[in-house]
């Protein structure tokens, strides 16, 4: 069984984790076309190589990000989601900016 290093809890059996999909940045729902929105919802890149993924440590419900090589299944690095998502997301402001 693989080991994954949880940034909060340390190395644990992979059975303690659930996968939460690739990290993808949501397009601005106000400006995105229907087609692009559909692609964002339904199309996965399925990259062969290192991908960024959401993983959750189930006993603590702790979400973090793992960089994993989909070819070798090697977990390259794990880190808190705050490394990528480091500022408050405002939807109202975004749409106002565009006006």
């Amino acid at each position, binding site marked *: *069984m*693989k*080991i994954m290093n949880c940034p909060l809890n340390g190395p644990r059996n992979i059975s303690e984790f*659930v996968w*939460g999909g690739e990290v993808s940045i949501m397009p601005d*729902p*106000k400006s*995105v076309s*229907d087609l692009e*929105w*559909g692609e964002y*919802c*339904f199309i996965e890149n399925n990259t062969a190589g290192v991908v960024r993924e*959401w993983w*959750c440590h189930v006993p603590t*419900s702790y*979400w973090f990000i793992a960089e994993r090589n989909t070819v070798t*299944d090697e977990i390259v690095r794990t880190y808190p*989601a*705050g490394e990528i*998502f*480091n*500022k*408050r*997301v405002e*939807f*109202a402001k975004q*749409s106002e900016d565009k006006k």
Partner: protein
Amino acid sequence: MTASNQMGGINRLPAPRGLLIDRSKQITFTFEGHSFTGYAGDTVASALAANDAWMISRSFKYHRPRGVLTMIGQDANTLVQIGDEPNCLADKRAIEPDMAIEGQNYIGTLEADRGRMVELVKKFLPVGFYYKTFHEKRDSWRFWEPIVRAMAGLGKIDLKADFHHSYYDKKYLFADVAVIGGGPAGLAAALQAAETGAEVILVEESPQLGGSLNYARFDETGDGGSRTSGELASRVRLQPNITVMTNAICSGWFADNWLPVIQGNRFHKLRVKAVVLATGSIEQPAVFRNNDLPGIMMGSAAQRLIHLYGVRPGKRAVILTANRDGYGQALDLLEAGIEVAAVIDLRPTPPQDTMTKAVQRAGIEIRTGHAIAEAMHIGQKKHVSGVSVAPIIGEGELGKAVAEYACDTVLMSVGYSPAGQLLHHAGTKFGYDTRSHMFKPEAVPAHVFAAGSVNNTFDLSAVLADGRYAGWAAAKDAGFERGSELAPPVERGAEEQTHPWPIFPHAKGMEFVDFDEDLKIEDLINGIHDGYDSVELLKRYSTVGMGPSQGKHSAVAAVRIVSRETGMDLRNMSVTTQRPPYTPEKFGHLAGRIFDPERRTAMHHRHLELGAQMMPAGLWWRPGYYGAKADRDQIIRDEVNNVRNNVGLIDVSTLGGLDVRGPDAAEFLNRMYTFTYTKLQVGRSRYLLMTDQTGVITDDGVACRFHDEHFYVTATTSGVDGVYRQMLQWNAQWRLDVDVANVTAAYAGVNIAGPKSREVLARVCHDIDLSPEGFPYLGVRMGTVAGIPARLMRVGFVGELGYEIHVPASYGEALWDALMAAGGLNGIRPFGVEAQRVLRLEKGHIIVSQDTDGLTNAYEADMPWAVAKSKPFHVGGRSAEIQLKNGLTRKLVGFTLKNADDPCPEECHLVLKGSAIVGRVTSAVHSPSLKKVVGLAYVHPDDAQPGSTFDIKVHGGRIIQGTVVPIPFFDPENKRQEM
């Protein structure tokens, strides 16, 4: 020979031979109905051999007699039935008093198997039999099935037996370094790793440490092995940081050095930083005519019989060899009083050393450059009776037989193959070494180390050095450095161990390459000529290597044959991929002790005391209804009526509960749910509908605002864990100032519902104004009930005046007791999930995942009122826009039956438009309150207007008509719940 020796069997050798047996403890068992006596420590096979019983089973296809081959459980020859347990390895399983053992694979008796006649029709059982027979002529299965089922297969399972479940369990084990294999390399590795500072677990499949040191001969005097074994084993015992596991088998290698180790009924999950695989090598058979007869065995098997069990392998032996070990065996046999008729050496000019010279001095005939052409037998192949010997004139080519030797034993000592299974599992690349004529590990993955004969190392001092090096390297890899750096041995002594071509076809065939599957040289050649010319393809086609021993003796020979037939270079080939497990595992080991968590509410035992029929809801148990199963329908109607007319109490503890708190709490709910919560007043609640990014409904509930910054959010029983996880994942991105806590289990809850619920509640709740004005419909309050701190909510799920009361879970049973007592005067009675489903359906409330599916959006569910259009964003909002624009293909409607006499449809009965399926019934019930069928169904949008009719296909294909009606069905103005 003393009396006690005779008791242990006529072939029993005197002490000190018999390392594993205890001659003071006799054990009697039966084999094929005959009584035998052996010693404690004997395996089934050694005890039988001691009593001169050599035939243990019959082969899979031709039902040929088979006997001892390896004495270490590497072959399928010794699979026996012990009681109701099939396929036990007779050469591994220790005998126990009164064990009842039977052979396998015969019709009638093992001695006189009627199935042995199959061999006579072998030309009708060609290689690729299944492919050829069933691929083209599929109907032929009907003819062949009963025959194949009767003849093939291993062991018997008595399906009528009273199956007992033994206790199996699993346990984790941890160490810095694991050493798999307790032979010389493993012992040296464990000692070195431990001395370097690592915590070590040493896993050995036999009862004793030592491996080949305990039975093989390393020198002329024959005591070097046991001396080294004793020394190393005693040093291991003195080393405090080595844990030794004997009778333990590591059956696989899994990611990040996770090693399953089976010992008795326990499956260990061993996790280490580094692992040394010192798994040794597997002696390979020679392939010649009738090489499968009982009495023909590996040289190492004979040595195991002699030294481990004190059993004489026969009276007169011929040794076929291509290495030094064959000469060691000759000396062992002589010392044990067994006549050696001849040593037949495949090599034209074998190197001379002290052991070969000792054999010469003993006057034993040595024929070099010769091979066995054929083995002869007595009595329907029950035992070998002699061999004919011929000169080797080319690779696998023999001249005319030049001699015959009468013998009852033939030892094969012609080479080895690494027991590289675990290395294979770990992803090691093996390459063919043209000097040693063996495959050897070339690229071993990180944190894995190989040592000893699995690592192409055979000279004893080199094996020990290789073990020490691997132990040191593994400890270093695990983070330990003590003492000086070690280097691997330069000379490994791997040459002159393995013959490159110990395969000798015979004009009359029956030279077995694979004993498990009864495959002969010609079968493999025919398979290759049928077009299956790669090792992997040939394996699937011919089944070579697919039997219980998984190619341990056939894989290398198969590769050699493919190489020669196709002209491929062995250096570019490998044996077929090895996958776990290394040895067969029992389902009991894999299952272990079953852990099956379930969740119970605080009132669980009260429900049982009240006679509830419990039903599962996810991991939870909930009361379905209270009373006997026979009265189910009437009980549910009574429970419904009591809520409508009086007062009922239901346990709603399983309902999800989330505390959402912080300055951004309202903004957070606005984003997670379709509705708007910013302006919800403190002390009020509002419906929640959750959709995912694609606009599909995933959950619903109620948001109760207890403070400007505090919402108590309910979620469905089965949905709450997913909702909670989704909330945390989204806020990991949004970074709103909000905290979400899943408090589901921390609160027990009840819904007291019915026109008299206020009256009952007032008896135990004194600090909340319960008047309709003071605590109106959809209001929420904090207070106490029966002195217990409580969160109260006026909700309308069942459509009556009612209060949900949530209290800390440890008070749940006391709350239930208090309300049941307070309602006694009013005839309060508990109601279950079944009644609640009826009550809510009468009100037309949906249940997410019953009335919705994996594609339902808010418009299809006819809930556009729940989707706020003015707010900047919610999850699924963008998709909802698109869904609204695209229009509907189906719509959820309430319906009754056009003809009141028609049967009530069931969930998932189809809704048709003409012949097209356009939807389905999601819920339907005969309403006790309305005395007619009411239900919810997806219909075509054109048929969704009240008054429209649509077709429902019910049981038996009958079509009935539903009529669309507005919901709620009951109390359409919702007056009762708003009292």
